[in-house]
């Protein structure tokens, strides 16, 4: 015989079930974390940039948007076929195409020149170096796109850090601690020395590696980047003047609105009030690195040269250096012509020395041809549309024989 059912209102507080059930709470927590992780993993492999041109400021670390390695890989995968020769472009704002609107940017011209057998993707960032994000992504995609050429620019005598530059190092750490890079002992030694030989970094190891390991398990970077891209951006940035633009607006609603240097008259691009400063900067590229020889010539200082050679060898494993084209960018002739004859000789020698050092380390290397005039520059370093077309021709002329030499294409 069953006991008569009690009316709920007759239950004493002691008999009322508590609303909180620890078992269900933990189940909800764990289940949702697993679901978010799987979603993040999946979203990271989707192309989130249907109209991608390059990493313009609204989708770059300049506004605290940090693209992940998976996202960048998805950009490549969505645009390129494995049967094409993948040409990944890295480097700084010169290769990014500052001052060249998207429809006239130099990498678009490069794609036209190379044709359908190649696929060009511009992953350069403003203020980056040749070993930053694009180099990392190319290395991560080495098996998926074995026919690949990595192209990036450097300044004369500018070495590259195996860990990348500080603002973009998050990309290197992500790929490194997720085990996506080639095992290369000299680079591992640099990582070890970075954390354990330098007291200021010793405490950062667990923080740096731990974040990546946590993200490897939970994929929060990819998930919340998707939210930022498609729905709402939640990281304040001072880049945009209004809160609505800077904070809330979904990143995908922004477009590449890079200006055109050609809209500014030549005299305003090369102003007299900055002439001395820009000429001094041009002079500074080589001045500290050279010493006079007995016969009145110039010689690169030995410690600088050894350091340069060491850095570029450690920056990439040998098999990746062979498929890398380094373009040594030149300063605008408008400023170079204002150097003394001796300084100009030193400047010119620095380019041939740079090319020799890069090539000796196993890279392909080139520099601007002599037909680049001051009108091909928007300022001391960046190129106008006409300069970009010359750059595209120069890179195409180097990439084609590389593709044959590497066995990607027949002559």
């Amino acid at each position, binding site marked *: 015989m069953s006991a008569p059912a009690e009316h709920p209102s007759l239950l004493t507080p002691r008999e009322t079930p*508590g609303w909180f059930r620890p078992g269900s709470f933990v189940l909800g927590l764990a289940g949702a*974390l697993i679901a978010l992780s799987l979603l993040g993993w999946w979203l990271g492999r989707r192309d989130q940039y249907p109209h991608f041109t390059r990493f313009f400021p609204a989708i770059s670390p*300049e506004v605290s948007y940090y693209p992940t390695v998976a996202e960048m890989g998805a950009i490549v995968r969505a645009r390129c076929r494995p049967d094409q020769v993948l040409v990944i472009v890295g480097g700084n704002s010169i290769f990014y195409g500052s001052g060249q609107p998207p429809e006239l940017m130099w990498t678009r011209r490069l794609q036209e020149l190379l044709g359908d057998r190649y696929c060009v993707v511009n992953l350069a960032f403003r*203020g980056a170096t040749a070993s930053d994000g694009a180099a990392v992504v190319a290395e991560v995609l080495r098996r998926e796109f074995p026919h690949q050429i990595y192209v990036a620019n450097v300044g004369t005598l500018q070495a590259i850090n195996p860990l990348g530059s500080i603002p973009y190092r998050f990309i290197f750490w992500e790929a490194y601690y997720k085990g996506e890079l080639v095992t290369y002992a000299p680079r591992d030694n640099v990582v070890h020395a970075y954390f354990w030989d330098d007291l200021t970094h010793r405490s950062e190891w667990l923080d740096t590696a731990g974040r990546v390991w946590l993200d490897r398990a939970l994929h929060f970077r990819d998930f919340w980047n998707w939210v930022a891209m498609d729905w709402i951006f939640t990281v304040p940035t001072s880049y945009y003047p209004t809160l609505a633009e800077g904070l809330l607006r979904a990143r995908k609603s922004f477009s590449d609105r890079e200006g055109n240097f050609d809209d500014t008259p030549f005299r305003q691009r090369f102003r007299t009030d900055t002439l001395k400063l820009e000429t001094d900067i041009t002079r500074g590229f080589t001045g500290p690195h050279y010493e006079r020889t007995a016969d009145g010539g110039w010689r690169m200082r030995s410690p600088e040269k050894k350091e340069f050679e060491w850095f570029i060898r450690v920056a990439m494993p040998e098999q990746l250096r062979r498929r890398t084209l380094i373009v040594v960018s030149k300063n605008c002739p408008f400023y170079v012509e204002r150097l003394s004859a001796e300084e100009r000789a030193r400047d010119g020698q620095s380019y041939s020395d740079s090319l020799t050092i890069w090539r000796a380390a196993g890279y392909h290397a080139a520099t601007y041809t002599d037909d680049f005039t001051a009108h091909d520059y928007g300022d001391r370093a960046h190129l106008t549309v006409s300069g970009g077309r010359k750059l595209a021709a120069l890179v195409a002329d180097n990439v084609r024989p590389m593709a044959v030499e590497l066995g990607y294409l027949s002559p």
Partner: protein
Amino acid sequence: MKMLQMLLSRLPPRLATLVSHVLSLMAGVLAAVILHYVLYRIDLPSKPFIYVAF
């Protein structure tokens, strides 16, 4: 919380148990979303990158 407890006390015991499980599950989901987002924000570099061309 008191209101929630009162509401539960007015429900039949089986339903009250079910509701309490669902509420706890949803609280767990909410906590997971918050934790996931907090990890994302903590992970962002603390120093903003300001691009200067020179």
